């Protein structure tokens, strides 16, 4: 267990800049999710921490110790690979014992006990003598996780740990990972491109874009208070509208969507008046058939039924908004009719 400090990390691959000065501070015992689209440098960041890539500049410190120039095998980290990287010529038990053997941790008997403990931890009791290819994807995933944990690493690195599982299994494993993290309290870096996974697993989300850190914060903060249009768009689809925003009399702010259509919003952190981007989350908007006080008039476009909710397009003063609403709320409303939109105070955010 240890506190991770990354200072000004840079990495180039030929012309491409994979890391453009990344600095991060991950507190001891925190599970941090590195989130971003493919090619944003998140996997490179993880590999730099693991020692598999050498950074062009910057330092990596774990528990105050500078490990930037240490070979990967001397860092005492546990890493789980996206492809699991189970050694195909070794059984499950041999795979689990491998880090203990390499690091000369304990004698044979102690190692065997540790292997049993790890198998128990990930509920693979009867699988010790199987070969990786005789296991299902979910079982392989558990072996890989157990192998990353078995040597008692200071830091756990997870590279897209759940991306090779099908949807249902992924949901189950998310809960198990949370459980495991509560139990072991290991400082963990988890790389993922799946915003939902990041939000549900992490204590801290680090959003990356084009080799840099876009925003860092708790899942709730980063979801509700995205700092940039990119952050807003990447963490759950949002409607981004170009609007004219300025302070209104009486303290609040008003945005003008189109000539004659203006709405109150809460005061932004950045008090620039003029052209701004307004974020409206799809699921925050309420669609109603009849007029309400504070509601805006709009026209309902295409509606796609998807079970509990419907996705719909709503045209508002020349803007095209995507909306997700409970199916019951849209029942009986056909496209082309007039509807009224409303959203809770404070959920319309100026970026």
């Amino acid at each position: 267990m240890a506190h991770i400090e990354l200072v000004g990390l840079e990495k180039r691959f030929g012309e491409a800049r994979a890391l453009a000065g990344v600095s991060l501070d991950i507190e001891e015992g925190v599970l941090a999710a590195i989130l971003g689209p493919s090619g944003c440098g998140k996997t490179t960041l993880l590999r730099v921490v693991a020692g598999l890539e050498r950074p062009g500049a910057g330092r990596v410190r774990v528990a105050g110790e500078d490990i930037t120039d240490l070979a990967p095998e001397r860092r005492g980290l546990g890493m789980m690979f996206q492809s699991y990287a189970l050694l195909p010529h070794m059984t499950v038990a041999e795979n689990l014992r491998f880090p203990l053997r390499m690091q000369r941790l304990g004698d044979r008997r102690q190692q065997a006990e540790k292997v049993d403990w790890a198998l128990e931890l990930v509920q693979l009791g009867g699988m010790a003598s199987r070969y990786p290819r005789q296991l299902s994807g979910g079982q392989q995933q558990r072996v890989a996780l157990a192998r990353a944990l078995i040597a008692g690493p200071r830091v756990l690195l997870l590279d897209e740990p759940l991306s090779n599982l099908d949807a249902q299994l992924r949901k189950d494993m998310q809960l198990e990972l949370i459980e495991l993290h509560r139990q072991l309290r290991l400082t963990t870096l988890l790389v993922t491109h799946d915003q939902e996974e990041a939000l549900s697993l992490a204590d801290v989300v680090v959003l990356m874009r084009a080799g840099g850190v876009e925003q860092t914060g708790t899942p709730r903060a980063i979801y509700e208070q995205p700092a940039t249009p990119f952050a807003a768009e990447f963490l759950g689809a949002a409607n981004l509208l170009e609007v004219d925003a300025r302070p209104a009399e009486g303290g609040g702010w008003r945005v003008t969507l189109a000539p004659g259509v203006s709405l109150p919003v809460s005061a932004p952190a950045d008090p620039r008046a003029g052209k701004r981007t307004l974020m409206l989350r799809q699921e925050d908007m309420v669609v109603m058939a009849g007029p309400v006080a504070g509601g805006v008039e709009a026209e309902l476009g295409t509606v796609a039924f998807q079970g509990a909710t419907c996705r719909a397009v709503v045209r508002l003063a020349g803007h095209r908004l995507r909306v997700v609403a409970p199916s019951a709320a849209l029942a009986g409303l056909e496209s082309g009719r007039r509807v009224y939109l409303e959203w809770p105070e404070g959920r319309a955010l100026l970026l």
Partner: protein
Amino acid sequence: MVGGVPLAAKAAAAVLVAACVTFMLVPLAVVVASSFSASEFLVFPPRGFSLRWYEEILGSREYTGAAWTSLRLAAVVTALSLLIGTAVAIALVRGRIPGTRTLVALFLSPLVLPTIIFGIGLLMVFSHYGDGPSFTALAVGHVVVTLPYVVRTVAAVLEGADPSVEEAARTMGANAWQRYWHVVIPQCRAGMLAGAFFAFNISFDEAVIALFLRVPGSETLPLTIYSKLEFSPDPSVAAASSVLIGLTVLLVVLMERALGIQSLTR
């Protein structure tokens, strides 16, 4: 793998590479060096510099005749091997025949059997049922040993190609000929090219079958060189050998241009 390659390993690798380059290339280099010798005898290091041995082989009916035989042989073998091998590869990859795995093993089996045994077998059969060794007999033998290369390279390329393109061609009304000409053959092209390089090279350089099926007076170039080596090598042999090396270099360069040589380790 980044970083952490120990200095000892790097040093060992450098020594190994140097040794490997020397060991692999020096035997070819000394042949080329000897061919420019000015002296009557094969000595090393060669004395003087001259092109007289090249003049000699160009003026010798024995060498030019042998080169012509080899060229004709390699051309015929390449064409036949390509035709038959491509058809086989298409059938094995795209066809729905029971026991395809067995058939694949069958078609690759000439690679496994020692050539000397096959060569003797051919000699016995052609002597027992025919008129003994001939150009035709030798060509047949070479087609058999080059066929697996063509089958393998074409099949490998075809396996990586999308089979639904063929089906798409059918839905668009292509008949069998059109389908082969416009879809299947173009899909095989890279494999056919590689197979042709191998077939030509093997047939041109092969000496074992050529030795058993030799027709006195019209031997292939490698065999002419072999006979000289057995009895009285002089620098003309080096010149003829250098021509063979030059041809190989040319083929390797062409192959690299056409296909990229790195693909050979995959």
